[in-house]
């Protein structure tokens, strides 16, 4: 089965056909996705701000990162299923041909890998062994990766 055929089988699956027949389901799922986007913005931002020496700078980085991680995971639990659903709605007729979609997929993979390996390890480093330059670099890379994800996502939705 080719990738296009896989996308076709997703878009024309009986579940998706049934859901497409209800007109308000798509905008509702898209709204949930946007709510998740706002939430992940907050959860990513408080940690990156802290790494930059801004925001909650009187608190240890590790404790801010630990508190934010719960909401990072929560927003991902909202974003991933609602995102996959939107993708399935037009997988074969729109997403397959859309560069912005493949860019988003790539940026998302990188952002997730970076967040849960490098950024997590750096953020959890003990206060005595911190390197401000490294902290700032990690924050800038994180902000750049997540902004790319959001920007490419926005481009997908354009007419």
């Amino acid at each position, binding site marked *: 089965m080719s990738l296009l055929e896989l996308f076709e089988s997703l878009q024309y699956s009986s579940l998706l056909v049934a859901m497409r027949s209800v007109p308000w389901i798509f905008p509702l799922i898209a709204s949930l996705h*946007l709510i998740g*986007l*706002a939430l992940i913005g907050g*959860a990513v931002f408080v940690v990156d701000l802290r790494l930059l020496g801004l925001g909650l700078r009187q608190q240890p980085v590790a404790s801010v990162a630990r508190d934010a991680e*719960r909401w990072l995971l929560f927003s991902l639990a909202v974003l991933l299923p609602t995102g996959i659903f939107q993708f399935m709605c037009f997988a074969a007729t729109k997403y397959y041909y859309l560069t912005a979609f493949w860019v988003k997929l790539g940026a998302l993979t990188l952002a997730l890998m970076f967040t849960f390996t490098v950024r997590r390890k750096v953020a959890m480093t003990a206060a005595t062994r911190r390197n401000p330059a490294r902290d700032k670099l990690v924050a800038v890379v994180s902000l750049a990766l997540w902004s790319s994800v959001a920007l490419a996502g926005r481009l997908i939705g354009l007419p």
Partner: protein
Amino acid sequence: MSRLVEWLAATPASIALHESHYAYLAVLTVHVLSLCLFVGTAAMLDLRLLGATLQSVRVSEVIARLLPWTLAGFVITIMSGGLLFFAAPVNAYGNVFFRAKMLMLVLAGVNAWVFQHTVYRSVNEWDKYPVPPRMARIAGGLALVLWAALITLGRMIPYQVYWFD
């Protein structure tokens, strides 16, 4: 009011923005991305009021350190939103979802004002509580519900034609 929006729609700048494909889409993109900063940081603050995050940080510190970022996001979101309205004033003015969205914005403002002038006055007494008192939790929870409603109604604006027209 409807004459005002008609006059606004007839101004050359409004027509230019309406017809320039890329400028309009750029403003729309800025609107959505600044929303991440605005509602994202506001949500972290509201979650602190609920006692759901940053429990070891004083409430006043969370507000003092994060609110400037929320306000910065708010200014960009309002300005880009204002431009989006300016590009199609008659459509937006007549849109049910747009009107409901503006109502949510006003309610969110009222909620913040009431919080600031009631329970937040005594913040010194509960600043360090991991879970703030009931009135503060209500304000935080209400704000989160209003943000979610605001975003949903905003996303629904283009769908008016399918249901109500």
